[in-house]
């Protein structure tokens, strides 16, 4: 039986960690993810879980220790945000290339500069090519649900890759909302025990992890890693299906909200999807056929599935909560349009950058975007393809 409660996103993830009771958690505090290790430490101090908590001196060390623990045969995790993730850079790549199924609770916060502690996706988007699976949440419920699904995905033999469970800093991590929590036993049963086949602390079966690789082997190893990422898609779908059967909630690679007959779709990720859905409900009342495609899984990138989901609409707004500084658009803009082209889905697209460093994304902003999409599709309005929304400017948009 689910239990109704109210919690912040950080509390929800810490609650899931308590229920899963992993073996090792090295962590270093950074806003806005600090509460996660803090709450886990409290659970441990109160005897509610027996995870080995390692207070380390930096995020470089927390990720290194998490990899070391995982290689030794333990189920490990850590949590971080922003500059903490940036300091883990080298280790993120090692976790993936050494095929360590560990989990990172990421609370999305912008990267400097200007220095700022609020939400955007520049931290995880910067790490998008490090070989981690990335799953994003709209709210505290999804952060909780996604975290419970992380180990079954990561530890599957077809995958053996690390998983980053992302939620929006402050907006999700600190806002208290209603949530359905599952029973400890049901969560433990869903996640299962971790029984690695090969690990360092395995007497009589010696291994070496992460050996130097000459050119004759490194390219093949990377291809195998890419294959694992491709394989992870079916595992993510299986785990999502199993989760839905057991707990009655959740989405697969993305959520399609009122898109079945939509002329205009907003493709968006994270907490702002909730705002976009409100705008869709309001505009539907007025007879405008609009919808939201909320991306849940960014890595592996479901290019073809997105193209198929968008193929019947007239125009799509692709929403990036980060800047790529390439004069061309953010990561979603680049990858979605490439996916549409490859599937020969030639609909209109406009790429918007929104919500940087905690800038509010409002229902009114979403109305404006849908109006502009309509203008583009119906009247052939020419708009700049890489647009900022919610920006103060002397130019009228």
């Amino acid at each position, binding site marked *: 039986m689910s239990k109704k409660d109210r919690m912040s996103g950080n509390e929800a993830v810490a609650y899931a960690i308590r229920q899963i009771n992993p073996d090792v958690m090295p962590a270093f505090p950074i806003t806005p993810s600090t509460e996660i290790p803090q709450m886990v430490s409290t659970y441990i101090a109160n005897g509610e879980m027996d995870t080995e908590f390692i207070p380390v001196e930096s995020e470089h060390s927390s990720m290194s220790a998490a990899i070391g623990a995982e290689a030794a045969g333990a189920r490990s995790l850590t949590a971080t945000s922003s500059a903490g993730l940036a300091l883990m850079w080298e280790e993120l790549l090692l976790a993936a290339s050494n095929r360590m199924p560990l989990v990172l609770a990421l609370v999305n916060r912008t990267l400097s500069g200007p220095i700022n502690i609020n939400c955007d996706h520049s931290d995880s988007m910067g790490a998008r090519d490090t070989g981690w699976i990335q799953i994003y949440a709209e709210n505290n419920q999804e952060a909780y649900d996604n975290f419970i699904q992380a180990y079954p995905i990561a530890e599957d033999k077809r995958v*053996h890759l690390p998983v980053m469970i992302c939620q929006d800093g402050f907006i999700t991590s600190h806002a208290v909302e209603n949530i359905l929590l599952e029973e400890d036993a049901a969560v433990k049963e869903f996640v299962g025990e971790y029984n690695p086949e090969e690990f360092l602390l395995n007497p009589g079966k010696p291994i070496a992890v992460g050996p130097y690789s000459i050119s004759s082997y490194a390219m093949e190893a990377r291809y195998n890693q890419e294959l694992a990422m491709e394989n992870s898609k079916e595992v993510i779908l299986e785990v999502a299906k199993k989760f839905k059967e057991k707990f009655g909630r959740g989405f697969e690679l993305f959520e399609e909200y009122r898109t079945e007959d939509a002329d205009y779709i907003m493709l968006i990720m994270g907490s702002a999807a909730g705002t976009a859905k409100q705008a869709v409900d309001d505009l539907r009342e007025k007879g405008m056929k609009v919808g939201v495609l909320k991306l849940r899984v960014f890595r592996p990138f479901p290019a073809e599935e997105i193209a198929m989901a968008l193929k019947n609409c007239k125009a799509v707004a692709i929403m990036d909560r980060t800047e790529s500084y390439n004069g061309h658009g953010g990561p979603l803009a680049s990858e979605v349009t490439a996916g549409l082209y490859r599937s020969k889905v030639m609909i209109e697209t406009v790429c918007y950058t929104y919500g940087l460093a905690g800038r509010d994304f409002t229902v009114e902003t979403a109305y404006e975007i849908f109006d502009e999409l309509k203008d583009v599709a119906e009247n052939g309005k020419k708009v700049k393809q890489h647009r900022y929304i919610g920006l103060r400017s002397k130019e009228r948009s």
Partner: protein
Amino acid sequence: MRTDVNTINEKTPHEDLTEGLMMFAQATSKNFNTGEWRTNTPVFCAEKCKQCLLCAPVCPDSAIPVKDSKRSDFDYDHCKGCGICVKACPFGAIEMREGQ
């Protein structure tokens, strides 16, 4: 998943490599003659050596073989010529020579 790594070579297709290039073996570094990195070479003078054995434990590799409490000549297959043993020897029984 446990593979005999001796069956893997530079012609092995990607499907047959181990996951993350994990090695299912131990002490494989012995198989690599890292001594070829050496640019300077320590030379052992047996007549000056008092067998105090201060040199063997400071070797960052294991290039000073010790048997029955006595060291013998260098293992040049693995000695990289760092010269730490030269500084450790109180009797001048190791001299550094330029080149391989």
